[in-house]
């Protein structure tokens, strides 16, 4: 299979998009990623977006940007969709369906006044069995955390280390919403939202957007940017399995091993990891399921700064992640890929740049753990 490369990546700098529409944020992000790649809108022949894009599938955004493409995909798995798009764009490029694929994400939940990510009830078969209890997103992830603590003895302090590491990185990011370095004590003493999760276990709500440009090998080699190749990818959906609920395992235990098998490497080879961090517990469960540590040992793995760049074994989310930097449209997958690309190019902030970063992983958890979630993992290599 011929290779596909991420040649353009752009994170919109805004965190509160007053006076910029969602469609405009998508297009500004697209323009940024194309400029980063050294390409133009006229070069785009494939387009990928998810449910944050206004309109039915890709159609309204294609009209807004006035693009003519001959391949499109609007797969939606919540915040992990953009990692699925990376994989699907690579497949489309490999099979000759397109040569320059544009992937966009944007949203403005802050400016629009939406304080939480609660979904309105939709006429799905599961809704009548969940919506009457009106679970908040924090409650759903709280149930995951409570069960993990019960089964494995994971502590609030261990979960807090994930936020501590993210804050160490965010202090260097001028765009990050929360740049103050916090301690384990700060996290566990922050107000309880839904026990066992505290306020500082939760990600930020931010406006913004991001975009990626993926190209074929021949286009990639004609450009001036470093070559970041998609080496492996996996995707899977986790759900309640007919009532055989397992809250402590996510579908990362499928998407991760498939991505590693395709890449022909193991978790020990990864120099940097972007792990979706809607909540601290989201990271802990994913690290276990991806194979960075045994199931149940995530608490010990993340403790004592093991995720802090320059200090721990697995530098993660060096932009500050969703926990401190940015979670545009309540969907954090796009920014996960963008920071992995920065690391592979050597373009992360010098204070957090991982030395000789040639292999990176990005992982997304979309929808919601505790009900239905889409896991997507990509492994990227700098050639």
């Amino acid at each position, binding site marked *: 299979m011929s290779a596909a490369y991420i040649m353009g990546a752009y994170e919109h700098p805004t965190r509160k998009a007053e006076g910029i529409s969602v469609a405009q944020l998508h297009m500004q992000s697209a323009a940024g990623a194309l400029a980063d790649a050294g390409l133009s809108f006229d070069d785009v022949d494939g387009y990928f977006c998810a449910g944050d894009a206004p309109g039915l599938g890709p159609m309204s955004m294609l009209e807004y940007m006035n693009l003519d493409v001959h391949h499109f995909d609007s797969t939606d798995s919540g915040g992990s969709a953009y990692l699925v798009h990376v994989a699907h764009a690579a497949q489309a490029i490999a099979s000759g369906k397109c040569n320059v694929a544009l992937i966009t994400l944007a949203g403005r939940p802050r400016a629009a006044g939406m304080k939480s990510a609660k979904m309105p009830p939709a006429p799905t078969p599961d809704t*009548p*069995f*969940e919506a009457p209890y009106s679970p908040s997103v924090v409650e759903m992830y709280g*149930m995951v955390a*409570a069960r993990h603590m019960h089964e494995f003895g994971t502590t609030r302090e261990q979960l807090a280390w994930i936020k501590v590491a993210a804050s160490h990185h965010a202090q260097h990011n001028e765009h990050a919403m929360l740049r103050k370095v916090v301690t384990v004590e700060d996290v566990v003493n922050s107000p309880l939202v839904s026990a066992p999760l505290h306020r500082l276990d939760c990600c930020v709500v931010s406006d913004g957007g991001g975009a990626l440009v993926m190209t074929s090998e021949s286009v990639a080699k004609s450009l001036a940017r470093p070559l970041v190749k998609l080496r492996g990818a996996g995707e899977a959906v986790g759900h309640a399995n007919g009532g055989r609920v397992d809250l402590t395992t996510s579908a990362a235990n499928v998407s991760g091993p498939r991505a590693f098998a395709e890449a022909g490497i193991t978790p020990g080879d990864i120099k940097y990891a972007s792990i979706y961090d809607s909540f601290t517990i989201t990271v802990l469960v994913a690290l276990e399921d991806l194979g960075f540590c045994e199931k149940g040992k995530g608490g010990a793995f993340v403790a004592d700064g093991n995720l802090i760049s320059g200090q721990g074994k697995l530098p993660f989310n060096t932009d500050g992640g969703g926990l401190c930097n940015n979670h545009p449209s309540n969907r954090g997958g796009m920014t996960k890929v963008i920071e992995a690309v920065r690391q592979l190019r050597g373009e992360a902030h010098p204070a957090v740049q991982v030395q000789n970063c040639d292999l990176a992983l990005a992982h997304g958890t979309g929808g919601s753990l505790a009900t239905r979630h889409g896991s997507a993992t990509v492994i990227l290599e700098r050639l």
Partner: protein
Amino acid sequence: MDLSDLAQANFDAQPYWDATAKGEFVVARCTTCGEAHHYPRAVCPFCRAETVTFEPASGKGEIYSLAITRMPDKPLRVVAYVTLAEGPTMMTKIIDAPDDVAIGDPVRVDFQTHPEGLTVPVFRLDRN
């Protein structure tokens, strides 16, 4: 679309809602493979046969996990997954929960009628 409309749109599970409206609790069980499941649907999620029946359930279970939200001057709000004596684990709420409510606590079913018109099973502690 309110909750009653949502339940009616997904009429696979109508016998479940007919039961809760009468203060009765049923589980869906497939007569082909014998497995109980939740949420109830017309096709068995395990053997895919369209032989799902609804049978009276004990209403007993235990808390599999929970999230506790404390608000000033309000009763404890507890969203939970409860594992039923019949096997499946379901999302629900624990009502009138004491402050020390925890995973593993035995519970029994009760019912609440939602403002939008659907009567749903909730659970309360049954510690004796």
